């Protein structure tokens, strides 16, 4: 089975069957990654561009590794040291790259809607690696894969997303994907970091992290950006940690088996207590491993869709 669309712009509109297909395929690729030679010829002859207009270490490396494991040819384009600095428009840059005959583009941009914009400029498959405050679908897929591995199903699972909801594309994709897969979602954070009308996503909203911990099976803890303090959205990192920081004490008080996820990079001592990332609660490194498998699955399924079309 292939995916309906030849692009992955977000999880909005992606069906339960499609997400299941991606996660099942990712599980297969994860096995391949354990082999002595973790490489398959699936995308041999395909060219993939990693177009990163925003700094990224782990997402870019994860995509690049997934591409290489599938034997694709890869090109990296990052905003620094490129024609972006020379004032070339996004449209021109992309059309130029596409003229070099590209099959897939992985794009990250600070502006929401850019992946969609690219689909209107070029013929290649476009995968969103994070657009502004909108979506980051592969992150949500790898989060769901990690949860499914641990709990067997996402149906009825209680997931609390904690932190800066309004600026988070990770939250944007997780809310959509988890709801589609039948999970219950609660968003928790200060009201100043809560987007307007968020409840229309069908999620619960709360401002007490203890309440969220008391309710949830799993916590997806978001990174807090220091610039939000500069913008006056919370008073200090100290207060943020006091009110929303996830600590061992808080988790143990719940007296249940709880899973802590984080999309990285972690601000240790702020949203997560210092050693919590390394504790028995954490599945953060599983997330990283699953990230490669999920991205392989997406690349494979989208390239298949493209073949079916041509």
């Amino acid at each position, binding site marked *: 089975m292939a995916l309906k669309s030849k692009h992955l712009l977000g999880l*909005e509109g992606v069906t339960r069957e499609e997400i299941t297909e991606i996660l099942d395929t990712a599980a297969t690729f994860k096995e391949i990654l354990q082999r002595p030679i973790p490489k398959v010829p699936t995308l041999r002859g395909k060219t993939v561009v990693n177009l990163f207009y925003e700094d990224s270490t782990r997402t870019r490396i994860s995509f690049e590794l997934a591409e290489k494991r599938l034997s694709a040819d890869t090109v990296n384009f990052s905003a620094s040291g490129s024609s972006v600095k020379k004032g070339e428009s996004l449209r021109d840059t992309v059309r130029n790259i596409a003229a070099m005959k590209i099959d897939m583009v992985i794009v990250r941009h600070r502006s929401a809607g850019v992946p969609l914009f690219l689909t209107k400029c070029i013929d290649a498959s476009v995968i969103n690696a994070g657009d502004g405050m909108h979506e980051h679908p592969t992150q949500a897929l790898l989060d769901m894969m990690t949860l499914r591995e641990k709990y067997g199903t996402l149906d009825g699972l209680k997931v609390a997303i904690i932190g800066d909801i309004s600026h988070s594309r990770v939250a944007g994709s997780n809310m959509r994907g988890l709801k589609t897969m039948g999970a219950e979602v609660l968003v928790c954070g200060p009201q100043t970091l809560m987007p*307007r009308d968020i409840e*229309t996503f069908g999620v619960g909203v709360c401002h007490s992290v203890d309440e969220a911990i008391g309710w949830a099976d799993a916590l997806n803890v978001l990174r807090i950006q220091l610039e939000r303090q500069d913008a006056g959205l919370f008073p200090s990192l100290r207060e943020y940690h006091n009110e929303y920081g996830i600590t061992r004490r808080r988790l143990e008080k719940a007296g249940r088996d709880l899973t802590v996820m984080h999309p990285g990079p972690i601000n240790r001592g702020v949203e997560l207590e210092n050693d919590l990332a390394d504790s028995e609660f954490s599945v953060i490194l599983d997330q990283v491993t699953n990230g490669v498998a999920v991205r392989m699955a997406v690349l494979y399924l989208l390239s298949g869709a493209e073949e079916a079309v041509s």
Partner: protein
Amino acid sequence: METYITTPVLLSGGALLDLQTNERHPVDLVVRNGRIDRIGRQERASFNGEVHDISGHLIVPGLIDMHVHLREPGREDEETIESGCAAAMAGGFTAVCCMPNTNPPCDRQEVVRFIKKRSEDQLVEVFPIAAITKQREGKEITEMADLLRAGAVAFSDDGSPVQNAAVMRHALEYASMYGALVIDHCEDEPLSASGHMNEGRMSTRLGLAGIPDISEEIMIARDISLAEYTGGRIHIAHLSTRKGVERIRRAKEAGIQVTCEVTPHHLALNEEMLSQYDTNLKMGPPLRTPSDQEALLAGLKDGTIDVFASDHAPHSAEEKEVEFSAAPNGILGLQTMLGIVLSKVVQPGVLSLADALTKMIITPRTILRLEVPQIREGEPANFTILNPEKTWTMNLGVNRSRSRNMPYFGWTLPGVLWGVCNKGRLWIA
């Protein structure tokens, strides 16, 4: 086709629309030496001059659009006074008021004179709106007396609204000495901050920073207080929110001098249409919700909203064909305003044809204290001839602007224009 009226012209078989009663009176109309020479029955055969059959069309005083951007001087690649006037004619207008956000800005009398001079030869009259503050920086008020003498008809900092209430107070006080109108684009800048669309369910879904409706409401409330306190005349540009309509309705009930306009865009379009991140739907104020649209229609119906204005805002393709957050605000509006008003306001029965046209003919001129053209024997010939029921389709071929940033291509609209007449010239569409 634009011609100077050298020989007498007979416009035969049309009807006058009475803007008071909405009644249509079949007439023949003769124009001689740029004036209306005769209204009544006139045999075509015995007429010595040019004859045009305009049967099926209505004659109304020339329309005015009190909020346009002509981009000259500064961005002649996007629009010129000439191309803007061409779009205005094609939209049925015989007059426009142009906003001061040019380069250099219209904040001194030389720029006012330049615009007057450059528009001298146009059929369309161009009335410059000068800046409230020097460089539109919101700090020091402009030389208003000098600007008025040069031909400015009102003051506005439009897209860079005066944030400092004391500066706005002084501007209203100073302008009120001359009875001059101050037009405000109501937006609290820190509240709007880096927003790109209306804040709410859709901005959250699209991941775009939002502009809350209270950003408009708060500034309207401030301006109303200042108008009441100073006795100045304030006009609220492009009203877009339910809350704003409410504020103005109450202010009018309290007898405070405040008027306002609405654009066709905020009536025809809403934020629900933004799911494709189309930059031709990006404007300031942003497209709002269907509930705000209902409130705007109600405000038109009960007279809270005085004027239709297009906020015609040409932008180059390079500037608009970019990611949503990088695109500038504004879309074209001159050629489609009449059609949108007819389809969204008149056809659904919100306003009669006469009442809708009044908001594009009489009220704007009354607010600006400009003379209202009369269709009477002996008066200058300043009128628009249209068929309000017949439809046409907007496409690139009929676009007369130098830019093409509008979402209306492919739209079929009512209101076919036969032509406009003004300043001794007749333009036939």
